[in-house]
C-alpha cells in the first residue's frame, strides 16, 4: 500500500536518528561551539556506528592530562611568612 512509502517520507527525521551505515560518519558537519552551554542534554548521535580512526581528533595531540603538577615556585606573597626559617 502506498501508505508505506508516504510513511517513510514523513518519518525522515526519525530515520536519520536510526542506525545507518558507518560510512556516513565522515560526512558529519562540525557543529558550532557557541551554543554548547545553552542546553545540558546529551544529544542523540546522528549516526549509529563509526570506526576507531574516526574518533581521532585532527590535532593529533595525545597528551591530554597533567599528572605532575607540583609547583616548586617559592616566591608567592603568602610564602614570605615562612621564608628563611629553615
Amino acid at each position, binding site marked *: 500500500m502506498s501508505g508505506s512509502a508516504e510513511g517513510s517520507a*514523513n518519518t525522515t527525521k526519525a530515520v536519520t536518528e536510526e542506525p545507518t551505515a558507518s560510512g556516513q560518519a565522515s560526512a558529519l558537519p562540525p557543529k558550532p561551539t557557541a551554543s554548547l552551554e545553552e542546553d545540558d542534554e*546529551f544529544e542523540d548521535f546522528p549516526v549509529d556506528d563509526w570506526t576507531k580512526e574516526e574518533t581521532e581528533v585532527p590535532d593529533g595531540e595525545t597528551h591530554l592530562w597533567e599528572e605532575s603538577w*607540583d609547583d616548586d615556585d617559592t616566591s608567592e606573597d603568602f610564602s614570605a611568612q615562612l621564608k628563611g626559617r629553615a
Partner: protein
Amino acid sequence: MATPTVEKFLLEVSRVLRERNGPQLQDILVIEPPLPPLYNLMVNELRNAFPSGQDDALEDKCTRALPEYVEMEDGSSWTAFIKFMRQYFCFLRDVNVENLVETFQLLRNLVKQSVNALGHGSMGVVLLPTVIAFSRALTKLTIALHKKPQLIAHLIRRQAADESGSRSTLVDTAADVLRDAFSGCLNDRSVTGAGVGSDGRPMGKKISIYVIANLCLKLYFECDKIRSAEQIFVNIQNGSPPLSLYPASQRVTYLYYLGRYYFVNNHFYRAQLALQSAYDGCHSKCVQQRSRILPFLITACMTLGRFPSQALLRRPEAAGLAEKFLPICRAISRGDLATFRSFFGPEGPHTDYFLRRRLLLPLRDRCEVLVWRSMARKTFLLAGSQGDPGARKAPTFDLHDLLRLTQVLERRSFGQTQKKPIGKTHTNSIFMFQNSQQNGIKPELYVDPDVKGVAEPAGPPEPTMLDIESMVSSLIYQGFLGGFISHRQLRFAIRGAKEKGSLNAGFPNVWEVIKSRSSDAVPGWKRDEVSSVRNGVSRPPGPGMVIHLSGARPAGTPPM
C-alpha cells in the same frame, strides 16, 4: 460505514508481518505529525466508523484482518499485537498535539501496548524497531513536559489533593513503560546462552538492550531521577552481552550515563574510567556530545590529581573551560587555599556554572585535600629541614610552620568572602537603624539580656595545631604524604627519602597513588569476558560460572 483505507492499511500490516520486516513496520506506523494525506483519510474513517466508545468494535475489525495471530501455527497467539493495533488506531483518532498532557497519556498507553506485544517469543522481535521509535518519542515528550511544569501543574495539584491515590508522577509512569521495554530486550527467552550469535553479534531482542537502556537513562538524568538508574546498571551487569558488541553511538551514550552515575555517587575513579572511554569513543566531529562529557570528566580527573592539559583545553569542545578550570588547578598546585576557596563562594566568577552542572561540591570538597597536600609540600620547600642521611636523620618540617601558613591563608580566605570588615554590631542593624540615622538621631541599641556582654565572633575560629595534626594524619592515611608525625616534636618526618629523594618520597604523585589502589572494574560496564574451556569445548560465559583469576599473569608475560 465503509472504511476502505483502514482495511488497506491492515492488509499492508499483515503483509509486512508475514515478511517479518521490522523496519518497514516501523515506517508505516506513523505517529508524529504532520501525518501524510493517506493517514488523514484513515483518521476521518476511524472518527466516523469507530468514534470514542466503539473501541471494542475497532478491535474486532483488527482481529478479522489479522486472524492468523489469534492462533498461530506454533500454537501460540499474538493477540497482544491486535490490541496494539487497536491502540494505534485510537491514538491516531484521538491525538491532539495542542494538548501535550493528553498526547502523553495516549502515547504512553500505545508504548505500553507495544511492549506487551514485544513479549511474543517468535514475532515480538519484528515489533522491535517500532517499540524503539515510539519509546524515543515518549522520552522526548516526557522530558519536554518535565521541563515545562506549568503544563502539568493541574496534574500535580490533583495528585496532591488525592491522598489515597497513586503518588507516581508523569515521569514515573513513562519510566515504568520504558523499563518494561528494556527488560523485554534484556530477558529475551527466545535466544540461548549468552545471547551472542556465531557472527559475534547480539541475538534477538538483545540487540536493542542498550538503545532502550539509553532512553531510560536519558529520562532519569533529565528528570532528576538519577537514583533510579542503578537498576538499569545492575540488570545490565547481570544479563547483558558485552558492551563492545554494540555500535559506537550506543556504547558512548551508555558510558556517558554510567560515568555520570558514578560521578553523582562520588565514585570518581569509576566515573573517570567510564567518561574517558566515552570521550575517546566519540566521533571526532560530534563536538556537542564531547562538550557534554568534558566538564564531568575534567572534574572527576581533578579530584584524582589529574589536571587537563593545555592541548585538551584548546579543543573546540573545551571552549570556555580553560578559564573555569585552570585557575583552580593553579591554586591547587600552589597550595593557595585562600584563592582556591574564593572560586566557590557566592561571588566566585563561575560559581553559577559549577552549581548548575553540579560540579561545585566535588571540586570544592575533594580538591581541597590536594590543596592541603601542596601547602604541606610548600612548607617543606620553604622551611623544612633536609635531614642527614648519614646520621639516619630524616627530612622534616615543623607543623608550627604549616599552622602559620594555614592561618595566614585562612585569614585571607575569610577576608575575601566578606565585603566589609566585621564589626561587633548585631546583624539585624542593617535593617533596623537606617531611618533613624537619616534623621540624625542616635539609635538606641536593643540587646537581649541573654546575650548582653557576649562578643560576636569575628569569623570562624582560627586553625589550631589539633587541626593541622588531623589534616596531616589524614593526608598520610590517604597516601598523599609519605612519612609520619612526631607528636612530641610536632614535626612531620619523611620516610624513604634516601631512595627516592625527599620530595618524591614525602609528597608522592597523587594520581599514581590513587591509581595504584583503585580497581579498573566498573560495575555496570560489561566488558569482554574470557570464554572458559570445559571438556575441550569452549563455551561463552553464563550465569553461575566462576572464573578463577588466581593464576592470571600480566598481559604480555610468557607462560611459566
